[in-house]
């Protein structure tokens, strides 16, 4: 431990360079992870806020909610037996904010349930993000799909779908707007139960049926994982390079009788000091980034994600450093003595 610290103290420049690179990689990982999480919230907060349960879509829907039409009998069967189950539909629409401005929105309608308030005919409830457009309760708004106007009855938090604010609307008005009768999805808070003619999905499975969500998250998560793997390799390479320079010294210490474990502890301690310092700095910087990022940028990095990623970095760093330390076990003290000054 002391040996590790003494070396860092005496080789500040060398260890600072390693630390800075780990800091930059972890900061980039935190930022991309924050963006992935932010985009995920912006894309699917409506679905992510559902309680755990099962989503049902028609078997012939090709796993696409847009193509799903739930048979009325099966819907009744599920709603009657499924406790707090409810059916719902989603469609994209255009909300006219004023005569010159329209906004893409996702319209959602549903059967009576305990999770969403009932909406009266001629009324709509909007995601709170639409307040930024100057909309307030009591305003009369219309959709491009219809000349009828609707009164804004209130706002809900975190209701976004397909990167659009969600508009909750009465079933009858929804049917008039989109000339449809059947619901697309049934949600049941009860765990997966097979229904003939319907496909059942868990919350995460349902999210993955939505193409934009899957493609977006897969890309960003792949980047995050690549960065983590790269950082592990960097650890292994850096410690390998440093170990190669110190093989002579390690060999002499082994000749003097030092335990190999003591040398491993030295490497692990150095890895720990560098990684933890770099991670603390990058976590703080990522929080600063969160506070200065433009509001239009969907960025959200919760503390739990930061801690999880940090633990992952430490585990990967530990593995990288250990891998580089294999050569310590193989050092021949005699060779080190014959090679000259450590």
């Amino acid at each position: 431990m002391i040996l590790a610290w003494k070396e860092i103290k005496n080789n500040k420049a060398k260890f600072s360079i390693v630390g800075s690179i780990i800091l930059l990689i972890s900061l980039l990982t935190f930022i991309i992870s924050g963006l992935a999480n932010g985009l995920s919230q912006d894309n699917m907060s409506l679905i992510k806020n559902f309680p755990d349960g099962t989503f049902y879509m028609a078997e012939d829907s090709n796993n696409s909610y847009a193509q799903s039409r739930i048979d009325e009998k099966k819907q009744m069967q599920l709603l009657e037996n499924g406790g707090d189950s409810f059916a719902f539909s989603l469609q994209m629409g255009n909300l006219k904010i004023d005569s010159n401005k329209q906004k893409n929105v996702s319209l959602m309608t549903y059967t009576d349930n305990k999770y969403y308030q009932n909406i009266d005919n001629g009324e709509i409830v909007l995601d709170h993000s639409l307040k930024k457009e100057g909309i307030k309760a009591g305003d009369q708004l219309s959709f491009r799909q219809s000349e009828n106007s609707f009164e804004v009855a209130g706002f809900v938090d975190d209701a976004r779908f397909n990167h659009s604010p969600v508009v909750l609307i009465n079933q009858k008005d929804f049917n008039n707007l989109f000339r449809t009768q059947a619901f697309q999805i049934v949600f049941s808070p009860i765990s997966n139960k097979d229904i003939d003619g319907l496909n059942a999905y868990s919350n995460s499975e349902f999210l993955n049926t939505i193409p934009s969500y899957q493609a977006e998250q897969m890309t960003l998560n792949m980047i995050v994982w690549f960065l983590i793997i790269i950082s592990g390799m960097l650890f292994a390479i850096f410690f390998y390079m440093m170990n190669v320079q110190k093989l002579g010294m390690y060999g002499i210490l082994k000749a003097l009788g030092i335990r190999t474990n003591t040398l491993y502890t030295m490497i692990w301690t150095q890895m720990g000091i560098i990684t933890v310092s770099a991670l603390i700095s990058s976590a703080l910087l990522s929080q600063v980034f969160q506070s200065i990022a433009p509001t239009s940028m969907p960025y959200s990095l919760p503390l739990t994600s930061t801690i999880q990623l940090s633990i992952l970095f430490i585990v990967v760093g530990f593995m990288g450093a250990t891998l580089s330390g294999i050569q310590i076990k193989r050092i021949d003290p005699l060779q080190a003595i014959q090679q000259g000054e450590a």
Partner: protein
Amino acid sequence: MSQLQLEQVRKSFMNGEVEEEVLKGVNLTLNKGEVTALIGSSGSGKSTILSIAASLQPLSKGRIIFDHQNLVELKPEQIRKIRAQQYGFVFQQSHLVPFLTVEEQLSLMLDIAEVKGSKYDKQNEIKNVLEKVEMTHRQSAYPASLSGGEKQRIAVARAIIHRPKVLFADEPTASLDSKKSNDIMQLIQELTHSLEMMTLIVTHEEEMLEYTDRVVKMSDGEIIMVN
């Protein structure tokens, strides 16, 4: 009486498909309080003897008896422990840890040898040893700021701080000038006598033999003369 004995030690290497024997049944005994010098021409096997005696490389045949046990039969961890606690080493070059001060080098050796005692006791031991090698004034210095002779004095201090029974020195004066070489050899001889160590020195400098108690001459893997 404590001794280190090499009995019928043989060492051979494979050179391609040909087996080369570099030690041909060497018998050697190191005695307490005595400096034994190994001399001989290059390739005579003197450095091989030292490294085998110090358990730094395995032998092909024979026995090494130390403290009534045959070291050849011990496990690597037991050998490591003997090296750490019972042996001291001085190499051709000082091989000090570059990022530790003189005091820390000695403290590290006490840790490696697992010497028991309070921090105060260890500090006292470091002070005593530095006095013995006349390096008290350099206890906070890093190796980079020491001269060649000073480095070698610290290497000697490191080799004896844990009071080893055997001191192995492989050409300890090879990188020093004549004056410093004499100083180091005198120091090793004095410490061997005062601490009653068994010291084995490999050297090719004949003028250093005046600081030894016994001279063993080797040629072609065999001992040809003992003085």
